[in-house]
């Protein structure tokens, strides 16, 4: 056995790893810099770089989504200078009786999604300030409660029923993902909640009709709904 064999093996591995890390860092940097607009979309240049977010691979779909903000930044990092007014940025998620709930907060605004993966879903939006959430959605859906950087507690009303809410903060790539696009003239909106144990719950509506999407790939944002590939991004409450 040549004396150098093992050492060369190690060094080769280290070199390959170094190259891959550099490529990954480049991919991260170029994805969070100002993105060229895909056909028909106005991408916001210089998306606020508050920590690298999950970047969907841009594909040709005329998506009405923007580059992700810091919607899934770790909840322990408080980016708000006026912390006493707006709730901390972050994402909270967990299982409730009516389904799985995820809430994403950015700049004092929140977007939430409650979904049981089968037939119930609701998007809610509203302010997240002074430690309180006050969100509302279609058909009387509502979410109210207190919010701090570790958990959200309160009540959620969906389909006429009110249930307790207690969900904790989650870290990337767990969180809330949303895709909104047009498919052959029908509006497609999909939501996915990725929990920290790796499981996912999601639903989509296509032209008002419920559809069951595939799981979303958290590294690329890709998912399939009714045979159409869509790209989801971390839900952005400021959109």
């Amino acid at each position: 056995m040549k004396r150098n064999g093992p050492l060369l093996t190690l060094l080769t591995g280290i070199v390959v790893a170094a190259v891959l890390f550099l490529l990954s860092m480049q991919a991260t940097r170029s994805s969070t810099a100002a993105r060229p607009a895909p056909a028909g979309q106005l991408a916001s240049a210089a998306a606020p770089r508050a920590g690298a977010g999950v970047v969907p691979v841009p594909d040709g779909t005329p998506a009405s989504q923007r580059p992700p903000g810091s919607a899934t930044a770790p909840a322990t990092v408080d980016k708000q200078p006026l912390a006493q007014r707006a709730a901390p940025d972050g994402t909270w998620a967990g299982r409730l009786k009516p389904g799985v709930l995820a809430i994403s907060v950015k700049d004092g605004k929140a977007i939430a999604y409650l979904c049981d993966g089968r037939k119930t879903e609701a998007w809610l939006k509203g302010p997240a300030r002074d430690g309180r959430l006050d969100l509302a959605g279609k058909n009387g859906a509502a979410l109210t409660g207190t919010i701090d950087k570790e958990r959200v507690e309160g009540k959620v009303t969906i389909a006429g029923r009110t249930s307790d809410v207690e969900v904790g903060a989650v870290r990337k790539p767990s969180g809330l993902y949303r895709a909104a696009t047009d498919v052959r003239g029908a509006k497609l909106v999909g939501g996915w909640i990725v929990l920290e144990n790796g499981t996912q719950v999601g639903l989509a509506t296509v032209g008002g009709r419920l559809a069951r999407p595939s799981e979303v790939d958290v590294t690329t944002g890709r998912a399939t709904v009714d045979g159409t590939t869509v790209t989801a991004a971390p839900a952005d409450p400021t959109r």
Partner: protein
Amino acid sequence: MQGADSTGSPAAHPAGYATLLVPVLIGGLVAITIGVYGNLHAPTGIGVNLAGFSSPLTVKVWLTTVAATLALVQLCSALAMYGRLPKVRVPSWTGGLHRWSGRAAFLCTVPVAVHCLYALGLRFSDPRTLLHSLAGCLFFGAFTTKMLLLPRAGLPGWAVPIAGAMTFTALVVLWLSSSLWFFTTTGFRL
């Protein structure tokens, strides 16, 4: 300098232990460094897609499976080289097979580890990811130690086999906690 009898008892060859020290320390350092990096670095979720696979996740799952299969080749060839396969005639190229299958397995794991560390980081959120994170650190530490032990003379006879066994075990745990989980939850597919 103590004799070249690598199967001598520890009491008669104290130098055997001393030569273990540096490789084991360096291996340990590698394991800890990987763990610390994985814990401190903010995961980016960025993945690289490879044509023909449904996602970066499946690329990793299959690379890990290839590595684990090569690890079985490693185990068998190691057993053969140490004469632990009675009644099997061991061909002269077994050593070469062991070395090259090992190198291939190791190189398969490197891109997987880079992606795991860079995009996902060290995770403790559930038993599976915790086990996977720890096994990943252990695997690279044990492999480093084994590579550093091999060129050394005067080692206790059990040193290289144990380093190899730890590497093998860590890789099996890695495969169980990722590829097997993927196959049984998402499906057996590319």
